[in-house]
């Protein structure tokens, strides 16, 4: 279809040609409601005219008004210049008129009903579209209806907006169809790239429909070349998403390998011709029947699992092409234009909903139209369009915490199921029926909800009224998707609540939440709503197709606040701004006031939604001027800090040569954020037996469903990286962005893979990160010097590790099993529930979410009940789980990689195996004399071969490095590094385990290296980028593996009987015969042993989690050492669990929901699970590094003496210590810092560190040289 522009604006000239092409229609499967559809003849009313006489318009309303009698705004428009009749927009038969008696009489009377049926346009699915209220969860059911009906119920729907609104608003409609709010391209593109489904960082998929609801492709009005793409983020085209059944798996999971002739497709509805599988029923050698299918990818269960999630689970759904789900407080809205411009009652907080707050949160109407029930949910407040759109309307969609930031703007994030658990979980454990589960998950995709009280909409809508009774958190009043959101408060690094002056608020103070600062955006606090910054274009798009949200934004902070040296221009300058920018002074509010105005040297902004509200803009330049009343020394120092040598000496002021924090180098919000949301992991367990609806395109029901389970949503992470060229390649905050782990349960309820992270298309780990604007701006609670540079007190080593994305080992994911290396075994001990929430057994969360199971656990005297093991050839002193493989150093047994893909599959007897079939077809063993330890450069799943060098695969190289702007992998990422007490260092290429080809899984040595026996008696290895720290009997040996095949000895630090080491940013902590020692490895080429020492009788391996070192201290138990100041560590606590923990050999720490746990390999005692923080023991559990309050909650004796525990999946590590990328970065051209970029934050050119203080020292101020008086604002105007 081709649409010509009838409007004239030159601005939109470029958009004149719009191709909304029909694409191949995806076949419709199993639509259960097909039979129920009524076949009718529909007549589409003529397009609503741009102009007409009042008499003509009246004719098209007359009949309607005989029943509706009055409405709020007849034409929906406040502008009296708009002349429309009812049928102009809605269609229908306006000539049907009833008498007053009939209209006022019984509305069930025959005459009334008949008139109504003739006047109205009726649906095909009469059972579903029963009333004028938006039905619950309509999704793709809209696609089944004729456009005439859709236009009748909502003329603003994008399918019919061209007819109803197009004669005036066509360019906006065209832009809107292509905008991200309609296409959702950023979600589908990001999800498909980050999870390896499509290799295109220039996204190719987006949602759009034609007038009659067919899937549509969108074509950009102009062809975007590479330059426009890289620097403006403009895409050429978006195609519809194929059905999930046809999308081949991207995941390198073993069940997707070819084989499995005995396993038939379990999806008859996807068109398998041979349903009984009679073709062959015997196993073939080398093709074990645990594999999903013997058919090709994209059949049976051989599909990409995250796509099911996209099409069937409501994550960010539904978008503008569909109505809101209209079933929970915060879910009420219409579709298309009306999706935003008709206001619904969703939130009672005036800061969120402004003047609409008083209308409640249940989607009921205030209309004067007598035919609309006032107590029925799903009606707009009024029959009225407005530009005064409250944030609560935005929140209906923008609530998904890791992706969209109205939450953080409000100062909330997703609740973790743990804080104030007693109020949110039923006292008696719930055992929901399948029907109940389905009904709940249809409203709320969280599996945890099926057990929680909040699955009841009546409970849910009033959760915020619990606040006065709560101990650990405060809830928001919006609950779209059925979710709960907890407030973020100002805290110190240890988690204590702080008031506005920075004083600690007592944990037991009943008024603590009103005293502590709620970290909402300062913009919200002064009464601003989303639309006060995001004007029409940010909402409608500018007509180009974008794939990244930030690329489609035209506003920038400085447009209204100016910079340190300039006043604001009041012209937009963001990535999507038109040339020269939008002149903000031309904008008016809905009620007619100017939105921006300079008055008497002050810049006034007027609220877009509240006619009584206006505020004075903070002007950055004024805060720099010591003679100005707004002067702020702290702000001035930060913004005017000198770059280079001058700055390292602390000099600042307008007189310095060059600013360190110049706007060209970093964004305003790099500092002006009070907190950053981060979603360190989300579990999507697909289950085969749920017959559920697709929410997009053809709709209909198919089997399979995946719930959506956020795991660790925290507010204490602050990380930096570089944005892509679209955003100026500036230093910008980076967030952990919804890394997935996937599980699958087949139709026989066998868990065919569990908790597996996919791998990104670029080969990097899917533990995704992305540059990001947190929307948590505040004036006082901002980032300061010591958040990004080494502090004078040298107490922020962990903060720096986190900042640079090197990871803090705190939010690591241990998961369903703790993996142990033993004297003669490897073993997986089940430590959590399988159902959601996956509470650690014996934990605080289990106590409330699963009271019955918790009691059983008590009855078992805290003993864990489930474990799987495999015998090992010798001592397994080091092991690491990565993906479906367990890497182990087995002493005389050498190095072995176990296949643990089936670890939770009840259909498999031996779940830890050396090979899925004959060792002739798969051999992942490398013999060596005495393999004492091993290390892989990351425990995140990666596939370096997907991002190859030019010489290996030119086409793929072009795609990844040029088009997708990805960095290369460092060579170490191909290898595992094994220490052997005799042979020294053994290097083994393990890429084959991630290449998706099952037939080449053979490992062999690449290098064996031990010159002059310097690695004799090696027993432990730690990697820090391409440096290796090897523990030997005589000392710590530092190696450079920049060329992994040619290791280079750097230095050996003589120490007695080194047992293990662990690295955090600048410091390597080492255990030896004396206890704990510390090395300064700021310059790995010159490691320095520091005097600090913690004496321990028998220190074994150790683990660093933020500001604490956990040392497995043999009979002394677990030594918890405070390393906030790494050069002067102090013992915080020796924990033996009343003597029960007395043979500690190794320890790892990880987070589950809001709590921190330690998993200790307690030698002869086996595994010990220790809860380190819990809401009842440590109310400061939300802190960056709360003081641990260890509590032994579970244990299990292992098959043989426990020696080692596998570290949990790193979730805050995107790059290694030498600046090489590990995890995928969203946004074209964005990436973590290189080593050089990291060092600029703390190293002088001579290699020595410089430090910062957060205190302002006025004597460091260098005033501006010229004595010219500051320009007055009048001049600026």
């Amino acid at each position: 279809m081709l649409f010509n522009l009838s409007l004239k604006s030159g601005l939109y000239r470029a958009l004149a040609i719009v191709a909304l092409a029909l694409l191949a229609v995806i076949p419709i499967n199993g639509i259960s409601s097909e039979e129920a559809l009524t076949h009718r003849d529909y007549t589409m009313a003529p397009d609503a005219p741009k102009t007409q006489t009042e008499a003509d318009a009246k004719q098209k309303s007359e009949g309607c008004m005989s029943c509706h009698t009055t409405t709020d705004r007849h034409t929906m428009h406040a502008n009296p210049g708009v002349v429309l009749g009812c049928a102009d927009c809605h269609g229908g038969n306006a000539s049907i008129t009833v008498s007053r008696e009939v209209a006022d009489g019984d509305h069930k009377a025959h005459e009334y009903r008949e008139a109504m049926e003739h006047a109205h346009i009726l649906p095909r699915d009469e059972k579903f579209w029963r009333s004028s209220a938006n039905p619950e969860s309509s999704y793709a059911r809209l696609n089944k209806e004729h456009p005439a009906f859709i236009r009748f119920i909502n003329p603003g729907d994008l399918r019919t907006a061209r007819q109803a609104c197009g004669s005036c608003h066509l360019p906006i409609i065209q832009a809107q169809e292509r905008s991200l709010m309609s296409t959702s391209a950023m979600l589908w593109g990001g999800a498909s790239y980050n999870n390896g489904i499509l290799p295109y960082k220039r996204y190719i998929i987006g949602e759009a429909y034609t007038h009659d609801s067919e899937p549509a492709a969108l074509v950009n009005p102009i062809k975007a070349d590479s330059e426009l793409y890289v620097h403006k983020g403009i895409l050429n085209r978006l195609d519809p998403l194929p059905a999930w059944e046809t999308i081949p798996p991207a995941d390198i999971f073993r069940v997707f390998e070819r084989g499995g002739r005995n396993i038939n497709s379990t999806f008859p509805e996807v068109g398998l011709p041979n349903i009984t599988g009679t073709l062959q029923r015997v196993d073939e050698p080398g093709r074990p029947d645990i594999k999903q299918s013997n058919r090709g990818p994209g059949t049976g269960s051989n599909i990409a699992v995250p796509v099911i999630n996209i099409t069937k689970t409501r994550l960010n759904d539904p978008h503008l092409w569909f109505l809101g789900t209209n079933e929970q407080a915060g879910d009420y809205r219409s579709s298309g234009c009306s999706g935003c411009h008709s206001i619904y009652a969703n939130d009672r907080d005036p800061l969120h909903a402004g003047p609409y707050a008083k209308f409640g949160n249940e989607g009921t109407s205030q209309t004067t139209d007598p035919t609309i029930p006032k107590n029925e949910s799903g009606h707009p407040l009024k029959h009225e369009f407005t530009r005064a759109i409250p944030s609560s309307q935005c929140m209906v969609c923008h609530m998904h915490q890791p992706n969209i930031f109205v939450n953080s703007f409000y100062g909330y994030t997703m609740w973790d199921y743990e804080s104030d658990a007693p109020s949110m979980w039923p006292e008696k454990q719930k055992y929901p029926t399948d029907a109940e589960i389905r009904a709940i998950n249809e409203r709320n995709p969280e599996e945890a909800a099926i057990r929680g009280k909040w699955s009841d909409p009546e409970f849910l809508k009033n959760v915020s009224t619990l606040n006065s009774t709560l101990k650990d958190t405060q809830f928001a009043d919006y609950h779209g998707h059925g979710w709960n959101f907890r407030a973020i408060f100002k805290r110190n690094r240890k988690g204590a609540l702080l008031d506005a002056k920075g004083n600690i608020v007592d944990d037991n103070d009943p008024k603590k939440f009103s005293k502590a600062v709620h970290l909402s955006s300062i913009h919200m606090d002064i009464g601003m709503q989303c639309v006060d910054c995001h004007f029409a274009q940010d909402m409608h798009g500018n007509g180009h197709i974008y794939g990244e949200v930030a690329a489609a934004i035209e506003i920038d902070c400085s447009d209204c606040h100016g910079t340190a040296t300039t006043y604001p221009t009041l012209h937009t300058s963001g990535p999507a701004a038109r040339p020269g920018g939008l002149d903000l002074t031309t904008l008016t509010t809905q009620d007619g006031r100017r939105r921006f105005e300079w008055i008497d040297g002050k810049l006034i902004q007027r609220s877009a939604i509240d006619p009584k509200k206006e505020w004075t803009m903070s002007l950055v330049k004024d805060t720099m001027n010591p003679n100005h009343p707004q002067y702020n020394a702290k702000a001035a120092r930060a913004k005017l800090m000198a770059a280079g040598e001058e700055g390292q000496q602390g000099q600042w002021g307008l007189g310095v040569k060059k600013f360190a924090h110049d706007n060209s180098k970093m964004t305003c919000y790099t500092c002006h954020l009070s907190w950053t949301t981060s979603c360190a992991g989300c579990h999507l367990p697909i289950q085969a037996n749920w017959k559920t609806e697709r929410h997009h395109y053809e709709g209909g029901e198919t089997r399979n469903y995946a719930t959506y389970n956020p795991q660790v949503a925290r507010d204490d992470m602050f990380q930096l990286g570089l944005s892509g060229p679209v955003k100026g390649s500036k230093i910008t905050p980076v967030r952990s962005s919804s890394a997935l782990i996937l599980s699958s349960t087949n139709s026989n309820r066998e868990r065919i893979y569990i908790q597996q992270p996919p791998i990104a298309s670029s080969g990097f780990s899917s533990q995704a990160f992305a540059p990001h604007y947190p929307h948590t701006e505040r004036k006082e609670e901002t980032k300061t010097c010591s958040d990004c540079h080494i502090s004078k007190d040298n107490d922020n080593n962990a903060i720096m590790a986190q900042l640079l994305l090197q990871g803090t080992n705190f939010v690591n994911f241990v998961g369903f099993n703790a993996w142990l290396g033993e004297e003669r075994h490897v073993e997986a001990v089940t430590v959590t529930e399988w159902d959601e929430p996956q509470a650690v057994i014996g934990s605080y969360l289990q106590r409330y979410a699963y009271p019955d199971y918790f009691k059983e656990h008590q009855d078992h005297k805290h003993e864990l009940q489930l474990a799987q093991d495999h015998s090992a050839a010798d001592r397994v002193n080091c092991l690491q789980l990565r993906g479906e493989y367990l890497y182990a150093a087995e002493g005389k047994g050498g190095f072995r990689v176990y296949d643990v893909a089936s670890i939770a599959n009840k259909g498999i007897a031996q779940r830890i195996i050396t090979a899925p079939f004959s060792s002739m077809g798969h051999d992942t063993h490398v013999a060596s004399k005495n393999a004492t330890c091993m290390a892989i450069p990351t425990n995140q799943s990666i596939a370096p071969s997907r991002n190859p060098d030019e010489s290996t695969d030119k086409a793929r190289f072009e795609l990844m490095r040029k088009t997708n702007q990805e960095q290369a992998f460092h060579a170490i990422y191909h290898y595992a590094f094994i220490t052997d007490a005799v042979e020294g260092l053994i290097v083994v290429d393990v890429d084959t385990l991630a290449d998706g080809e099952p037939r080449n899984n053979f490992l062999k040595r690449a290098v064996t290296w031990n010159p002059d026996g310097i690695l004799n008696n090696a027993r432990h290895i730690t990697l820090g980028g391409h440096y290796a720290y090897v523990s030997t009997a005589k000392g710590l040996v530092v190696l450079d593996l920049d060329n992994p095949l040619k290791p280079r000895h750097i230095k050996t630090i003589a120490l007695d009987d080194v047992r293990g080491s662990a690295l955090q940013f600048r410091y390597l902590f080492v255990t030896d015969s004396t206890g704990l020692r510390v090395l300064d490895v700021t310059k790995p080429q010159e490691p320095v042993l520091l005097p600090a020492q913690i004496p321990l009788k028998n220190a074994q391996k150790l683990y660093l989690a933020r500001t604490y070192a956990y040392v497995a201290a043999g009979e002394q138990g677990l030594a918890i050492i405070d390393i906030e100041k790494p050069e002067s560590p102090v013992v915080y606590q020796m924990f033996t669990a009343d003597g029960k923990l007395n043979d500690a050999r190794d320890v790892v720490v990880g987070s589950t929901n809001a709590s921190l746990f330690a998993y200790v390999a307690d030698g002869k005692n086996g595994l010990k699970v220790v809860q380190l923080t819990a809401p009842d023991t440590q109310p400061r559990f939300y802190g960056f590094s709360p003081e641990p309050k260890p509590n032994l909650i579970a244990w299990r004796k292992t098959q043989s003496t426990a020696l080692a525990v596998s570290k949990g999946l790193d979730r805050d590590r995107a790059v290694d210590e030498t600046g090489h990328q590990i995890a995928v970065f969203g946004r074209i051209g964005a990436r973590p810092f290189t080593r050089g970029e990291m060092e600029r934050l703390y190293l002088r050119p001579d290699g020595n560190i410089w430090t910062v203080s957060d205190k302002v020292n006025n004597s460091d101020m260098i005033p501006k040289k010229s004595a010219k008086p500051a320009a007055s604002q009048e001049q600026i105007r």
Partner: protein
Amino acid sequence: MRRIQLGGARILGMNICKMVLLCVGLSLANSAFAVMPNLSHDQTVGSVNCANSFCHGSITHWDDSNVLQNEYTTWERLDQHTKAYNVLLNKQSKLIAKNLGLKKPAHESKVCLDCHAHNPPSEQRGERFIMSEGIGCEGCHGPAGRWIKSHTLASASHANNIENGLYPTDSPVAQAKLCLSCHFGDQNRFITHRIMGAGHPRISFELETFTAIQPAHFRIDDDWHKRKGDYNPVKVWAIGQVIASQQLLNAFTDPKLGRDGIFPELVLFDCHACHHPMSQQKWTPRLGVGPGRIRLNDSNLLMLRAIVRVVDSNRAVEFNKRIMQMHQAVSGDGDPSGLSPIESAQKVSSSLDAYVTIIKNQEFGLPQLKQVYLALIDEAIDGQFSDYAGAEQAYMAISNLSLSLAKMGGLKSAADVNRQLANMRKTLSNDEQYQPKILARQLADLKYTVSQSR
């Protein structure tokens, strides 16, 4: 001969009167007698209703519409009328209100708001009317209550719109009356000497110049001509001078406006006649009224002198004489024909009516334009611009006419003229230090430059 001339003139005068009546009859509905926006009984809806990007709020103009469609944007971005209200919030306005003893602050006082905003009676304010938008769309184009729905119709003609209450700003007379109603004052809103005394700045205005620098949010093109007829900036200027002169004289002759206690309303007189240090002698004999007398502000009449010299050359001498007599009457010497000052002024005023029509009927082609131009300069050489107000008008006129001349190809070098205009602007930059001799010399130079352009 003289008699005959006079007699002829009388006859001609009568004819003119008839013609005027006829013309008025024709144009009554749509121009000079249109209801002023501030006096309309229609509902004011507020500029926000015009501001939509596909109505009049487009960022750029449309090529295929009969109006630019970015009128609102031009107004909002560039037009000082947007700031008219905000001026009332500044210190100076607060002081004026205080000095005047107003009961309310300036931004709430009718006397201020009447001109610094569109200030309809409260019952005529629509739900989105905003006083603070200053002189918004309806302040000039008239309250839109009756025409907003119909003016977008394809069938809507300019005449329909005017019939529905759109103010005919395309008519120079209507435009002049409207603009002058604030930029000078009329019986409904008038800036008195008391307001000036309280701190209000001196007012300067010239219709065509101010229309251009407003800046114009319309373009005179084929569409315009089709819908609204002829447009000649010289005529607008000239008619502006007639109406401005009349407004002043009418105010002078109005028993209410023209008096303040025992004094005449001083705002009608040349400011600088009084406002100068006592050590300075600021009078010249040009009005024949000698020292120590205050002079009616004749700046617009001075322009008319030059216009009449060209368009009605036969009676130019008579015209000048009439004005001179009025000055004499007003200054106390007495009208030689025995009329009272008021009668004398009335006589001048009523004689001006004819010139509206005369001017309308002029072509103002290149030769004629040049004549007017040179006539203005001759007035200077004649010493007529010895007062600042007149000099200022002359500058604006010459600057205006230079543009028209240039467009018609009547200037050899626009750059030279621009340079000279810039020098003149400098001469006029400070009204209190204005030196007529310098301007006269500059104008003589300009005359030379323009005369070369043949």
